[in-house]
C-alpha cells in the first residue's frame, strides 16, 4: 500500500523533476549546442528574410544563367526571359523612348545610312546607264522599244545591258504547292506570286507525270525566251529563281545553299506548315540574297570614249596634215614659179621621188642659188633635191657677168654686152686693154669685142704731158743766146716733164725724143738769126742736161724765123719769137 502514495509522491516529484530535467536538458543543450543553434537561427533568418535572400541570390544569378546556357537550356531560358525582357522594353519605351532610342542609335544610324546609300547607288547606276545610252543610235532604238512596250526607258536600257538578273525568287512548300515567301528585284513587274507558285508546282507535276519521272525528281529549269526559271529542291520546300539572261552555273550552288539554310533554320515550320506563311517572312533576307544581277562590264562602255578620242585625234591629225599639205603645196608651187622665173636656170622636170621633191634641169653657175630661194620660201631642205647641170646662158646679162668675172675690168671701165658684143668704155691701163682684146672673144657668148670707147690710161697722160711740153717756152733777150736768170728754174720743171713723159712713153713700142727748138725774131739777118737760134737751142739743151735730162733724148735745132712761135700763140707778142720751145718727136732710128 505504501507504494501508492509513494507512487503518487513519486509522480508529483517526477512531474517536478521532469520539468526540472527539461530545464536542465535545455540548459545542457544550450551549453552544448549554443554556437550551432545560433548558426541555424542565422541561416533561418537568411532564408526567411527577403532582403538577405536577394543579396545571396544576386551573388550567383549571373553564374547560374551562364551555367544553364552552357548546359543547353537556351530555348527554355529564352522562353522564360523573353516575356519579361519584352515587357521591360515596352515599359522602357513607354516611360522614356529616348533611352532606348539612344541605345539603338549606334546600330540604327549605320543601318539606315547603308540602306539609303544603297538606294542612291542603285538609282545612280540606273541613271548613268540611261545617260550613256540616251544619245546613241542604239539608245533611240531602245527608246522606241520603251514606247512600244510601255516600260520605262531606264528599264529597257537595263534589260539590254544585262548579262543576267535574278528577277524573282519563290520559296514554295512542296506538299501544298503554296507560296511560303517571295522576293522580287526592283523595277520588275510581277503577277500574283502565289499563283505563279501554284503554276510552277503544277508544271512540275505535269512534267513528272508526263514522263513518268520518280516523285522526288524535279524539273530543274524552264526556259521561256530570255527568261529562265531555275528550281532547286529540298525535302520540304523548293526554291525557284526567275532569271533574265544567262546566269553562270555557279548560281545554282547559291540556290542550293539557300534552300539548305532554309531547311536548317525553318525545318520545324516547314513540317508544321498549315497554310500560314507568316513564319517564313524571316526567310526573305535569304531569298533577297539570291537576287543577283550582273551587267555588262564597265570596260565595254568605257572603251567608247577611247575610240571617240582616238577617232577625234585621227581626224585632227588628218585635218592638220591636209592643211599642212595644202600649205606645203602652195609654198612649193610658189617656189617653183620663182625658180623658173630665174635667169640662168632651166627646169626640165620636177616630181616626187621617195617622198622627196626632185628638181632636174640646167643652171648657169652665175645664176641665183636655188637653195637660197628654197630657204626664202621656208621649205624643209631635206624635202628637196636638186639635180641641176651647169651650162652657159647666152643671155646678154649672163655674158656680161661672165665677162666681168673673167676679165676683171679696172674701176674706171664699164663693160656691157648687147647682142653678144662686149663693149668696154672708160680709161684702162694699156695691158688690160690688151687683155680685153686678147681674152674678150674667148668669154663664152661673146661674139665680138668693141674697145674703141676705151681710152688707154698711159696715152692720155702722155698727151697731157705732151701738151704741157708743147706749151713750155724759154724766152731770151734780143740778140742773146743765154736765158734771163729769173727763168733758170723753168729748166728744172721742164727737165722733170721731159723725163716723166719719156718714162711713160718708153714702154710703148715707138721710142720718142724731145726736139729743143731755138727761135729768133725777124729783126737781123737770116744767117745771124740761124746761128743765134742754134746757139739758143744748144744753150737750152745744155741747161736741160744740167737739170737731169739724158742728152740722147734731146735734139737741139735752130730754126731762125722759119717756125714762128706766134703761130702757136696768138698773142702776137714777138718776145715769144726770141725763144726756145720743146717738141716730142719720134726717136731717130740709128
Amino acid at each position, binding site marked *: 500500500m505504501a507504494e501508492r502514495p509513494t507512487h503518487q509522491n513519486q509522480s508529483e516529484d517526477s512531474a517536478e523533476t521532469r520539468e526540472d530535467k527539461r530545464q536542465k536538458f535545455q540548459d545542457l543543450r544550450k551549453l552544448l549546442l549554443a554556437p550551432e543553434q545560433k548558426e541555424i537561427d542565422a541561416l533561418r533568418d537568411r532564408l526567411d528574410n527577403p532582403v538577405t535572400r536577394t543579396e545571396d541570390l544576386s551573388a550567383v544569378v549571373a553564374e547560374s544563367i551562364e551555367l544553364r546556357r552552357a548546359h543547353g537550356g537556351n530555348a527554355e531560358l529564352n522562353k522564360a526571359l523573353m516575356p519579361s525582357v519584352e515587357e521591360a522594353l515596352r515599359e522602357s519605351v513607354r516611360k522614356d523612348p529616348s533611352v532606348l532610342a539612344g541605345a539603338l542609335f549606334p546600330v540604327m544610324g549605320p543601318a539606315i545610312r547603308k540602306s539609303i546609300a544603297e538606294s542612291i547607288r542603285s538609282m545612280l547606276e540606273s541613271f548613268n546607264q540611261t545617260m550613256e545610252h540616251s544619245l546613241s543610235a542604239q539608245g533611240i532604238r531602245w527608246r522606241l522599244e520603251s514606247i512600244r512596250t510601255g516600260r520605262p526607258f531606264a528599264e529597257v536600257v537595263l534589260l539590254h545591258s544585262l548579262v543576267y538578273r535574278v528577277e524573282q525568287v519563290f520559296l514554295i512548300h512542296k506538299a501544298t504547292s503554296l507560296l511560303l515567301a517571295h522576293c522580287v528585284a526592283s523595277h520588275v513587274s510581277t503577277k500574283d506570286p502565289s499563283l505563279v507558285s*501554284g503554276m510552277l508546282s*503544277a508544271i512540275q507535276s505535269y512534267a513528272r507525270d508526263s514522263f513518268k519521272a520518280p516523285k522526288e525528281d524535279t524539273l530543274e529549269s524552264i526556259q521561256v525566251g530570255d527568261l529562265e526559271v531555275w528550281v532547286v529542291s529540298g525535302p520540304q520546300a523548293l526554291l525557284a529563281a526567275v532569271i533574265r539572261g544567262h546566269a553562270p552555273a555557279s548560281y545554282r550552288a547559291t540556290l542550293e545553299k539557300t534552300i539548305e539554310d532554309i531547311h536548317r533554320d525553318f525545318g520545324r515550320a516547314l513540317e508544321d506548315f498549315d497554310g500560314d506563311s507568316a513564319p517564313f517572312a524571316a526567310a526573305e533576307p535569304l531569298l533577297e540574297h539570291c537576287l543577283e544581277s550582273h551587267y555588262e562590264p564597265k570596260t565595254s562602255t568605257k572603251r567608247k570614249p577611247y575610240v571617240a578620242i582616238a577617232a577625234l585625234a585621227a581626224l585632227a591629225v588628218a585635218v592638220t596634215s591636209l592643211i599642212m599639205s595644202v600649205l606645203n603645196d602652195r609654198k612649193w608651187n610658189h617656189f617653183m614659179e620663182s625658180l623658173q622665173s630665174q635667169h640662168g636656170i632651166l627646169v626640165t622636170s620636177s616630181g616626187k621621188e621617195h617622198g622627196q621633191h626632185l628638181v632636174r634641169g640646167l643652171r648657169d653657175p652665175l645664176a641665183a642659188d636655188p637653195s637660197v630661194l628654197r630657204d626664202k620660201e621656208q621649205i624643209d631642205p631635206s624635202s628637196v633635191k636638186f639635180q641641176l647641170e651647169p651650162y652657159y646662158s647666152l643671155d646678154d646679162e649672163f655674158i656680161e657677168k661672165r665677162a666681168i668675172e673673167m676679165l676683171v675690168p679696172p674701176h674706171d671701165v664699164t663693160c656691157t654686152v648687147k647682142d653678144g658684143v662686149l663693149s668696154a668704155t672708160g680709161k684702162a691701163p694699156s695691158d688690160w686693154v690688151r687683155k680685153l682684146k686678147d681674152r674678150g672673144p674667148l668669154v663664152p657668148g661673146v661674139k665680138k669685142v668693141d674697145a674703141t670707147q676705151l681710152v688707154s690710161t698711159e696715152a692720155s697722160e702722155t698727151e697731157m704731158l705732151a701738151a704741157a711740153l708743147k706749151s713750155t717756152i724759154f724766152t731770151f733777150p734780143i740778140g742773146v743766146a743765154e736765158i734771163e736768170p729769173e727763168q733758170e728754174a723753168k729748166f728744172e720743171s721742164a727737165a722733170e716733164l721731159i723725163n716723166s713723159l719719156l718714162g711713160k712713153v718708153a714702154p710703148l713700142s715707138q721710142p720718142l725724143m724731145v726736139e729743143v727748138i731755138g727761135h729768133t725774131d725777124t729783126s737781123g739777118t737770116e744767117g745771124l738769126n740761124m746761128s743765134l737760134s742754134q746757139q739758143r737751142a744748144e744753150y737750152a739743151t745744155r741747161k736741160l742736161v744740167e737739170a737731169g735730162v739724158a742728152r740722147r733724148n734731146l735734139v737741139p735745132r735752130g730754126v731762125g724765123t722759119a717756125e714762128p712761135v706766134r703761130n702757136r700763140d696768138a698773142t702776137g707778142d714777138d718776145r715769144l719769137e726770141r725763144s726756145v720751145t720743146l717738141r716730142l718727136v719720134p726717136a731717130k732710128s740709128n
Partner: protein
Amino acid sequence: MLQKKICMLGTTAVGKTSLVRRFVESIYSDDYHTTVGVKIDKKPVRVKDKDLDMVLWDIYGSDEFQSLRITYLNGMSGYLLVADGTRKSTINDALNIQESVAKDFAKVPFVFLLNKVDLKDEWEAGPDLEAQLAARGWTVMRSSAKTGEAVEAAFHTLGEKMLR
C-alpha cells in the same frame, strides 16, 4: 497570311470553270486547262475573322477519274465536288470521284455542288439524293454560275470547314 489550296473536281462541262470565273478575276486564260490540265486562281476571303487566300486549282475535268492527275491534288486543304444537276450521269461521276479521292484524302473537307440550278426545268437531281448525301455527313448545295447563286456561299462554307 493564311493560304489554302482548294481543288475543283468534277467531270467535263459541269461548270467548274464558270464557278471559279464567277468567284475570281482570273489572270490566266482558260487555255491552261488544255495545256497543263490545271488553271490556278486566287481569291482572298474572310472566314471566321481570318483573312484567307484561297488558291483554287481548277483541274481540267475528265470523264474518267483515273486519268485525273492525282498529283494536282497533293496538299489540298479542301475541294469543291461539282456535278451538273441537270445531268444525272455527272452526279454519278462526282460520287465516283469522291470515292477515289477519299482513298488518299479522307479527312479533307469538301462541299458538293449541284450546279446549274437556274435550269429548273431540266433538273434531274431529286431531293432524295440530297437527303441521302446529307445523311452521310456531306454538305450539299445548289448553285448557279449563271446567276451567281450560292457561289460565294459555297466557297465560304468550304472555308469554314477547312478552318474548323
